[in-house]
């Protein structure tokens, strides 16, 4: 049992870097990433798993960090948008978003990129249908989605 209020040690690999932290049972992964690790890419918006702005990958699986206990990530690899690029070189998905003009205000972008990353890890060359299916629950208030979908299809090598 982990007592209420007690801080438990957890070990994670965040964006390739091993981290040891002490978190309370009720700490949400989103807050630990943003406040303890200063990774502000994942955003809190709906706080109820409907928008995708807080999406991060835990052992490769997309989760809503707004509704996911940090203790659950113990022993896992966590990928946030900060971990996508290699130094100054954008990840191909990021490049595709730029090329397609799939970013406007950018609030949804981190979540969209990570959702796309999870999809491309599952299906290297997703169809438009597969992209639309995977993006359900990832909301964008600016772009109208078309360019986001185009970017993800293009990142998989498809011709939009």
């Amino acid at each position, binding site marked *: 049992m982990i007592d209420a*209020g007690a801080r438990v040690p957890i070990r994670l690999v965040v964006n390739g870097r091993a981290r040891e932290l002490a978190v309370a049972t009720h700490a949400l992964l989103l807050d630990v990433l943003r406040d303890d690790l200063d990774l502000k890419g994942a955003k809190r918006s709906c706080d109820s798993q409907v928008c*995708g702005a807080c999406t991060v990958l835990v052992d490769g*699986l997309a989760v809503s960090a707004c*509704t*996911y206990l940090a203790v659950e990530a113990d022993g896992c690899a966590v990928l946030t948008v900060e971990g996508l690029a290699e130094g100054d070189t954008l990840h191909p998905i990021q490049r595709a978003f730029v090329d397609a003009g799939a970013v406007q205000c950018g609030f949804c972008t981190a979540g969209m990129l990570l959702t796309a990353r999870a999809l491309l890890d599952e299906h290297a060359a997703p169809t438009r249908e597969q992209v639309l299916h995977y993006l359900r*629950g990832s909301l964008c208030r600016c772009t109208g989605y078309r360019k986001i979908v185009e970017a993800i299809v293009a990142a998989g090598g498809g011709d939009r």
Partner: protein
Amino acid sequence: MLRPFALHRPGTAEEACGLLARLGDDAVPYAGGTELLLLMKLGLLRPRHLIDVKRVAGFDAITDGARLTLGAAVTHRAVERSPLVGRHCALLAAVARHVANVRVRNVGTVGGNLAFADPHSDLATLFLTLDATVELVSGRGRRELPLTDFVRGAWETARAPDELLASVRLTPWPSGTAATYVKFGVHERPTLGVALALCRAAAGARVGEARLAIGCVDARPARVPAAEARLTGVAVAELEDVAGAVAEAAAAAVDPADDLHGSADYKRAMVAVFVRRALRIAAARARGDVAPAARFPHAVVA
């Protein structure tokens, strides 16, 4: 923000049930947390102890035999990808693929879905056509009851506070069954779910047994015996002739309320529309045809 709580991670059902019995009202089972953590964030629930069921031995298992058994902690994603589910009930895998969104599917569980008993559940509706029973376990022993008896109403089940939902057992349809699940809605959760299975009679040309379940519009999902009776014995080639009567029987059987998903009249009308569509799809599948252009606005066809 969540309030502090103690987290227990029992490895066996005995241990978990012991904790529930000892801690009483202060404790709640916790699986993926996709429903529970939302209620806790809103302050609607303030448990002092969370009993994590994900490490309970056997709870994450999918097994076959006479029946297909899904452990309570099996995620929607695991159902979608399970070869056993694909072999015994491909429609279930297809339905799992369309539950919620990818993030909820990765974390949310079958047991959490059923134990929460939200009226807008795809699984409960589909499971009624698979003669589902649930297995409950406590320090007092195990019991099995039909899903119809387990789900009592909106967010209400027959589970006693010291019991855990251990698994759900399904009876896959006989081979040659033509089935479909159609869900409709513009919100995150479905406004309507229609599950239809047409099991062939021995000769194959007629419907031996029909199963139709309607979900989301009433407080709990239910089969529609009057509509099923209209389908039994009907020749596969003539199924569309009874579509009107079947749809009417289904619409008459529901008793919806006005809410954000629409007015009662609207929901009743949609029940008729989507039962007719589901029947058209299942009939086409029974004939071995490609289903009719399965592109209805705001609907998903599995």
